[in-house]
Structures are given as C-alpha cells and as structure tokens.
C-alpha cells in the first residue's frame, strides 16, 4: 500500500519561520513555499511506503509543520509502487533527504504535467503533452521540442496585442499520435507562474502570457481610457478564461498575494489578478508625491482574490539603462 503525506497545519506560532524551513528543505523559493502552504491540508508527496511517509512527517514537524500520512486509495494512485522497491531515501538527517522537485503535487493537479527549471532568475517551462493534445504558446517562445510536434500559427489574443507591440499570433503545438515534450522560454528574465483555470477568469498584464491549454480563451480587453492612460502600462489587459492550464511570466521574481479587502500595488508591478478583484488606478498621495516620490500612480485592488506581483518593473530597467545608451546625434 502506498501512502501520501499532507501538511495539515502549523506546529508553532511562527509561521514565517516554518515556511522558510520548508522552502530550504525542499529547495524552493520562500514565495513558492508560501503559495503551497496557503491552502491546507496540502499534499506534498504521494506513492511512499509507510516508513518513508513517517520520516517525512517527522522532518516536517521539525520544521514546525504538522502533517498526516494517509494510505492512498487504490483508484487515486496513478502508479502504485511495488513494495519490493522502496524509494532510495537515506536514513540520516531528515531535512536534506527530501527530493528537490516536489513543487507541483501531481496527484492533485489536473492538466498537463510540467516542470519549471531555472527559476526564479530565468525560469524555463517544459510541458509533457499527451498524444494528440495541443498547447497554445506565445509567438517565438518555443525553445525546444520533440521532432514530431507540429506547429500551427493562428491569429490570437486580439488587436490589443498588436497595438502594444506584442505578436498578434499565437502558436499551437500538437503532439501527433505519440506523447511529446516542449520547452518554452519567455522573453523577459524572471519567473513563471501557473494556474489551473476551472471556469474562472484571470487578467494578465499585456506581455505576461506564456502558454495555455487550448480550452483557455485568450483575448485582449480594453481597460478603459483612464485606467489605461494612468496605469503607465497599456490600454489593454489579457483576459484568460475557460478550463485548463495557464502559464504567465514576470520580469523579476514573483509574489502571489491573497487579497481580502484592499491592497495597493504599483501599476508597473502587476502581473496578473483574479476576476474577483475590482481595481482602480489612482494618484499615490497628493500632487507632491506624484512629482517627487517617483510612485505616481498605483492600482488599488478591492474585493477577494489573488494578485501576482513582479519584483521589478520594465519601466525602471529602461530608466536605469537609458543613461548608458548611445545618444543619437541631433542634426
């Protein structure tokens, strides 16, 4: 019988320390750990024998997390591990024993199997496509693929993408007859985010789109003149809706923030947000701060939902790099 290990709660008051220990042990970023441990219980490992599962629980308790090892139902176990072949887990020092890649708990995730490598600096997405399945990918983001994968180029995303300098095309890659894999590299240096849409809607900053399931609809949405003008970003957002995986990228690192009430984000740092949030673009402070604080306009989110924030803005990069660019001679 195989067991699964779930984190059920915090064994100590200091949740931040517990999450940090968890992040270190699993070799993931603190943001990712926080994201994983937001909704509890969270299954972190499946297909373990009982002794190994218990060792995981002990290790988690040392990090300040309570956990439970439960037998998996036969139907839920995708590939029951024969008891004759126990996982090669070392006995000593429980924390470093953990395998590195447990970030996406496969048993709970519907959708494509995928891995993200090189995060958070230069995150790279590898998606395993089942036979006869298709994935939509941002133009020119494909970096590697199996030779039998076919590419088709379609108009996608709407006119807004054209106006803001993105490609108006989206490529569709299909694994014909046999499963295949595709590696996807976004343009900007930074991290990758993933959500599985289940009939809900997510808005992405223009240019943050990386890839999605073909059942996810990507369209551009006019923000409204005031929001678009003052946000300093663009007049359009990408509206992603439907069912399936969605990947988006950031410039810089990524923070996922659950909002309940109000939260203020600098306009340039917004990557994505869920539909439950209303937002307005407003002046930050009085007119004095508008001119002197360097903040200018911010976005105030209201409601309940999640917003993804990038830790750098392209505008700041451009301002910083501008002084080193060669000046065109005026003639």
């Amino acid at each position, binding site marked *: 019988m195989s067991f699964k290990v779930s984190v059920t709660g915090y064994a100590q008051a200091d949740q931040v320390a517990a999450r940090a220990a968890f992040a270190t042990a699993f070799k993931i970023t603190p943001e990712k750990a926080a994201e994983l441990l937001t909704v509890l219980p969270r299954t972190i490992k499946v297909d373990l024998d009982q002794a190994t599962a218990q060792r995981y629980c002990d290790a988690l308790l040392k990090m300040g997390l309570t956990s439970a090892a439960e037998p998996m139902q036969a139907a839920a176990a995708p590939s029951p591990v024969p008891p004759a072949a126990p996982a090669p887990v070392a006995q000593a020092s429980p924390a470093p024993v953990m395998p590195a890649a447990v970030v996406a708990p496969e048993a709970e995730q519907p959708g494509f199997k995928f891995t993200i490598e090189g995060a958070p600096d230069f*995150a790279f997405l590898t998606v395993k496509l089942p036979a006869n399945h298709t994935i939509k990918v941002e*133009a020119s983001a*494909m*970096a590697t693929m199996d030779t039998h994968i076919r590419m088709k*180029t379609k108009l996608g995303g709407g006119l807004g993408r054209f106006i803001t*300098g993105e490609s108006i095309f989206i490529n569709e890659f299909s694994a014909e007859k046999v499963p295949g894999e595709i590696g996807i590299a*976004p343009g900007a240096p930074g991290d990758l985010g993933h959500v599985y849409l289940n009939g809900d809607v997510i808005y992405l900053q223009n240019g943050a789109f990386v890839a999605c399931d073909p059942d996810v609809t990507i369209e551009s949405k006019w923000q409204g003149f005031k929001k678009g003008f003052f946000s300093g970003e663009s007049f359009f957002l990408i509206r992603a809706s439907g069912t399936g995986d969605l990947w988006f990228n950031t410039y810089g690192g990524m923070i996922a923030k659950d909002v309940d009430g109000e939260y203020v984000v600098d306009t340039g740092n917004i990557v994505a947000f869920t539909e439950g949030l209303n937002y307005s673009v407003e002046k930050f402070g009085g007119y004095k701060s508008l001119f002197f604080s360097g903040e200018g306009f911010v976005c105030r989110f209201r409601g309940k939902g999640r917003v993804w924030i990038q830790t750098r803005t392209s*505008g700041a990069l451009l301002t910083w790099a501008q002084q080193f660019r060669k000046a065109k001679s005026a003639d």
Partner: protein
Amino acid sequence: MKAEIRGSDAFSYVDLTLAPGDSVVAESDAMSSMSADLDLQARFNGGFFAGLLRKYLAGETLFVNVFKNNTKAPRSLTLVQPTPGGIRALELHNNTFYLQPGAYLASTEGLKLGVGFAGFVSWIAGEGLFRTVVKGSGTLWYGAYGALLDKEIDGEYIVDNSHLVAYEPGIKLRLQLAGGIFSSLFGGEGLVTRVSGKGRVVIQTRSLSGLTGWINPKLS
C-alpha cells in the same frame, strides 16, 4: 585546484583556489578578483592568427590571461562572464566538446582550444559559422545568458535558434523550418535546429533575441 561555481543562475561566478604551481587560462576580462601575488600573463588566444580567428569567427577574445600561482600557499581567483546567466564546469578526459561562439570562459592548461567550421547550417541558424572546439584533458568553464539545462539526446530533438550553448561530438545539426511556410514566417519561430545523434546538448533558458523582443517594443 579547487573550483566552485557560486551565485544564482542570474549571476554565476567561478570561485577558484589555486594550489602552488597551478595555473588556469581565462578569457580576457573574466577576472573579477584575485590574490595580489598571483602571476598574470596575457597571451594570444592560441597564437596571433589563431587568436584573430577566434575573435572574429568564434566570438572569443583575442587575448587570454594565464593565472599562475608561483607562491608556496594556496591563492584565490574569481572569474565572471560578461552576460547575466549560468556557468557550468565540465571535466574532459581526452575527448572533445563543442561550444557555441562566446560561451568559453576558462580552462585548465591541459585543454586545447581551436576554431572549427560548424557548417553553413549552424551559420544560417544564427549560431555562427564557427564553433569553439575544446580538446584534451582538464576542466572547462563555459556559460551563457540564461540558466543552463542539460538535455540528453538519443535520436532527434528540436532546439530553437540561439538557445544552443554547447554539444558533444556525437551530435549533428540540421536546419529546418519551425512549421509550414506561414507559421515559420509569422509564428516568430522561423528556422529551428534539428539536433540528431547520441549525446548531450546544453541549452540556455533565455536568448538574446527573446530579450530584445521583450524590451524593444518598450523603447521609444
């Protein structure tokens, strides 16, 4: 000699400790810090003409620096590459390894570097007409923009232009369109490289063209 690659994927560097008598060859400009009593000697990258070839054809520098520890105690040296990105070390035991232009960073004295004709396929693919051929026994350090990933090839695989960093001699490159004519023209993928054979390829998770494609629409 002790060597360790430190830093994150974005800004890797090589932290070397040279034992007495050790020496290491590095691209000019690669040294970022060193013990004050290491001996430094600049020399042409494999001779004057070979150096010129390497500079203009393989994207390397005309000069290389040789760092030698002539003292009686261990001395330290740190090496960096010009682009943000990852660095890798590779041990060669009397075998050959191919690097794309610009990827070479440093090596131990036992390795010979040469410029090899990579074929017109590589050139049209935007990977350069020439490649750096590394031969011999020793340690090689190389790097590129982006994080570096290994991919074991057995059969065929497609790598987009400008994502290829290095490959083993068992690998052949061939050029093809990414899709049909329409897709290849408008899908932003254009030509891709079909790598075939058996061996390892190293890819970079970001490309310069991806960076410019992201930043250029924002520049006014």
